[in-house]
């Protein structure tokens, strides 16, 4: 390789981009790092000072508000660390197919069940029940994961024997037990210094729960769209499309005459979809599904805010009408106005927006690259549809899935700003404020740039950790193939 000192040509080509990179990316990163350690504020009276870790202490610290309990806080923190280590180890063990993972899965499922029932019985907390359900699902997934053809049969048998794979789950169980027992005492004696930070972090993570749903949905849609519909010759297609349009017209007319023009329009829309599908095949569906993505943004959010209106929005109106028709008086939930429903509302909107979006296109591209001969060979071997998908298609999609999940995590942790700003202003009692909206509030209302920068760097730390974990996890998947 001929490594010469950069020629003038290099500078010429690189300069505009690099200059921009320097001024608008590198310099701000450095500046932001510096800001996070100062008390930088837009208020003129506050003189700029280097304050070291003060912002981070205020953000993440815990202070004592009451008499110290018998168990020092140190043990509590240790238990938290052990819990985290256990969770990470659990993921790792499952991916690397250590021995004993299925016993570990049983333990994890048990932990999940106990958490859910204990929380429901004593002081139901949405977060704890959620955590318990996730543990249960993870445990079941471990226990029920089938035989992968790439794993030696011997290792598969090992999964049910005690081994290194049980340790992480046991760690998790032990830590959960310690935390639960000390819960009451320690919680009431200590409080986080910035309670809101943790609440908003919880909001951010909660809102990310919709991401797997939308990724799976995108995959499903891609699978549905990957093969063209065998509609036959152009004549048959157009004929079929015309029939559908006719059907739509008839429905519309019937409903109109029957006094329910709206049902007619709704039915007509369905027929129209079918007609488009017949005429233009999968391309039309791809376009329609992509609609929300590229019109996403403020316009759609304002639209959804109107959709979620408790009195005049179509969802609640439909629920009430349905109830009327059946003889009940139903009222739809208070979507954006109740602390329980605000986040699920945003998640539903998020899934609707993203399900047919770029992820679906990426999957479509990847699906088209799956070698047909592999599929044919599997079919000859007698593999059914599901087996073909699991053992041939899914591994081929692994790089795409990995890419999508990394981008989704990065996006999800930074997201929620637009929804908070446009739809809920942070939501009833701060329930839809995410970390990015918190940064905005700190910047614009409190003028506290140093603190806001500290928040964004902590966010970066989370993203970094999540990406590393994802990378390891993804690598594990690939290693096995």
């Amino acid at each position: 390789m001929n490594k010469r000192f950069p020629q003038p040509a290099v500078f010429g080509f690189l300069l505009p981009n690099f200059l921009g990179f320097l001024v608008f990316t590198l310099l701000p990163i450095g500046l932001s790092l510096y800001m996070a350690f100062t008390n930088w504020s837009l208020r003129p009276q506050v003189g700029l000072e280097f304050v070291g870790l003060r912002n981070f202490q205020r953000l993440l610290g815990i202070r004592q508000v009451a008499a110290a309990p018998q168990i020092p806080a140190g043990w509590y923190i240790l238990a938290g660390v052990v819990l985290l280590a256990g969770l990470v180890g659990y993921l790792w063990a499952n991916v690397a197919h250590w021995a004993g993972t299925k016993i570990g899965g049983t333990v994890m499922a048990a932990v999940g069940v106990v958490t859910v029932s204990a929380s429901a019985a004593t002081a139901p907390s949405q977060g704890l029940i959620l955590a318990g359900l996730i543990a249960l699902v993870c445990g079941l997934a471990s226990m029920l994961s089938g035989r992968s053809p790439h794993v030696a049969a011997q290792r598969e048998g090992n999964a049910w024997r005690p081994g290194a794979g049980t340790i992480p789950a046991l760690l998790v169980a032990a830590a959960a037990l310690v935390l639960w027992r000390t819960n009451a005492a320690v919680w009431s004696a200590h409080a986080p210094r910035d309670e809101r930070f943790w609440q908003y972090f919880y909001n951010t993570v909660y809102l990310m729960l919709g991401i797997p749903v939308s990724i799976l949905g995108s995959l499903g849609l891609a699978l549905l769209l990957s093969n063209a519909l065998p509609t036959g010759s152009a004549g048959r297609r157009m004929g079929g499309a015309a029939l559908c349009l006719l059907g739509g017209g008839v429905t519309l007319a019937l409903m109109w005459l029957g006094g329910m023009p709206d049902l007619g329009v709704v039915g007509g829309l369905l027929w129209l979809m079918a007609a488009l599908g017949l005429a233009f095949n999968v391309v039309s569906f791809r376009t329609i599904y992509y609609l929300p993505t590229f019109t996403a943004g403020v316009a759609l959010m304002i639209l959804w805010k109107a959709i979620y209106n408790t009195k005049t929005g179509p969802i609640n109106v439909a629920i009430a009408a349905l109830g009327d028709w059946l003889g009940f008086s139903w009222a739809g939930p208070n979507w954006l106005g109740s602390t329980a429903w605000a986040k699920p509302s945003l998640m539903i909107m998020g899934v609707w927006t993203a399900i047919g979006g770029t992820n679906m296109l990426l999957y479509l591209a990847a699906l088209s690259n799956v070698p047909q001969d592999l599929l044919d060979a599997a079919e000859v071997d007698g593999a059914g549809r599901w087996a073909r998908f699991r053992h041939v298609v899914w591994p081929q999609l692994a790089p795409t899935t990995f890419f999508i999940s990394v981008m989704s995590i990065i996006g999800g942790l930074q997201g929620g700003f637009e929804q908070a700003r446009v739809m809920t202003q942070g939501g009833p009692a701060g329930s839809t404020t995410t970390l990015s909206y918190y940064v905005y509030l700190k910047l614009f209302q409190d003028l506290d740039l140093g603190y806001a920068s500290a928040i964004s760097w902590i966010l970066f730390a989370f993203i970094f950790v999540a990406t590393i974990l994802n990378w390891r996890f993804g690598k594990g998947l690939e290693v096995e193939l």
Partner: protein
Amino acid sequence: MNRAGMGWIGRLILLSVIGFAIAMPFLWMVTGSFKSRAEVDEGSIRLLPENPTADNYPILLNFKPDAHGNYLDLRFGRWYFNSFFMSLGITVLQVLTSAMAAYAFSRIQWRGRDKVFLLYLATMMIPGLVTMIPNFQIMVYLGLLNSYHGLILPAAFSAFGTFLLRQFMLSIPPSLDEAARIDGAGHWQIFWRVVMPLARPGLIALGIITFLGAYRSFFWPLIMLFDEQYYPLSVGMLSLDSSYGRQTELIMAATVLNVVPLIILFTACQKFLVKGLQLGGVKG
């Protein structure tokens, strides 16, 4: 699958139902934009307006006064122009500079090349939020706040674009370069005559992604602009939401106006986007 049969009709039905679910809010939006305020506020289940009115669009565009007799005085046309202009500017600059930088990173050997590129990659993981705040301060310091330059310039340079185009360019065989060099071409000519035409799918894909992203961008224009005249559509539409009294029917009309050009644009460019993504691939 070689089972020809009626199974595909089931698939068609399923796809149609999903398409319906996704298109339904848009339908509601379009029908709502033809309703009068009284009807919208009433909140009945009727999709189609009882007394359809085509007034909402002229009211929005300031050709007619609204129900109270006041002109809305929203600079809708200007916001449209701003969105389009800003997106165009950002796209052109970004594609051009990214292509040039990608060329430098892929077709020319120079010392430290890979290290600098690694730096680019590393910064891609930093969340945009981190750089927003100091970027804002820099803008204040340079006096670029509340101006078009401030809107366009920071977004005109992208590590992502450089990365994407470099991947594309790596797949172009270097033998073509050498052939051109033998004919006496310098880097600039090679760039324009050889590399760029072959990288066209990538350029188009990047262009579309950048244009859409810029058109929809909200956070940066929101914090950077104070004067209504500079607002892109995304920020301008906020004032519809908060001016005295919610005017849902106007919001519907505005959303339709916001959405329709993008639909047209996208339908036209759709093929390129998919092909570009396919060729660029997600080779990890």
